[in-house]
C-alpha cells in the first residue's frame, strides 16, 4: 500500500498564483521530502523537513509538516510557467529503509 498520497492529482493555475499540494502518509517518519519531475526527466530533490520540524522555507517554497495528522503541504508562491511539473512527496521511515514515494501531483502553470 502507498505510504504517501498526494492531493490533488492534478492542479492548474495562472502564473503568479500560489500552488498548494498536500501529502498524507500512514506511519511514523524520520523525515519527509519533496521532489519535482519535469516531463521526461528524473526527479530533483527540492526540500526536506524533519519529523521534529513544523515549517521550512526555501526560496518560493514553503513546506509544513503536521505529524499528528500525518500530513505535509508544499506551497509554491508566485508560480511561474517553469514550475510546471509533477511534484512527489517521499517519506523516510525508521529503520534505514529506502524512501517511499507517492503518486505525485501534476501542476500546470498557465502563462
Amino acid at each position: 500500500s502507498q505510504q504517501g498520497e498526494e492531493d490533488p492529482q492534478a492542479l492548474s493555475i495562472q502564473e503568479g498564483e500560489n500552488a498548494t499540494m498536500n501529502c498524507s502518509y500512514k506511519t511514523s517518519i524520520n523525515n519527509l521530502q519533496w521532489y519535482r519531475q519535469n516531463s521526461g526527466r528524473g526527479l530533483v530533490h527540492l526540500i526536506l523537513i524533519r519529523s521534529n520540524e513544523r515549517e521550512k522555507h526555501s526560496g518560493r517554497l514553503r513546506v509544513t509538516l503536521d505529524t499528528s495528522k500525518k500530513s505535509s503541504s508544499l506551497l509554491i508562491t508566485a508560480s511561474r510557467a517553469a514550475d510546471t511539473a509533477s511534484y512527489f512527496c517521499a517519506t523516510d521511515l525508521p529503520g534505514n529503509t529506502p524512501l517511499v514515494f507517492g503518486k505525485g501531483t501534476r501542476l500546470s502553470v498557465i502563462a
Partner: protein
Amino acid sequence: DAGITQSPRHKVTETGTPVTLRCHQTENHRYMYWYRQDPGHGLRLIHYSYGVKDTDKGEVSDGYSVSRSKTEDFLLTLESATSSQTSVYFCAISPTGAYGYTFGSGTRLTVV
C-alpha cells in the same frame, strides 16, 4: 544528471529476452536504487544496494535481479522480459540513504 548516468536511454526488446540496464555514478555514494515509474502507480522500488555486493529487494522485485560488483555500477537485469515490465526505470543514489536522492534521467523500456 550530474554524477549519475543511465544506459541505455531507450530500449525496445522482445518478450522472453534478457535485458540489462546500467546505472553508473561518479559520486562514490554508498546507496543505489532502482525504481520503476508507471502511470497511476508513481515510483515503486525494485531493488536497492547499500554497498558493494549488498543488495535487497523492494516492493516490486519479482522478475528482476541486480548486481553491484563496484561502488560506481548498479546493474538491473530482467531475466526474461514481459510486457508488464514496459516502464520507465530510474536509478537513484544517496550518500546516507536518508537524505536527498539524486536521480538519473531514466531508461524507457518497451517490451513487445
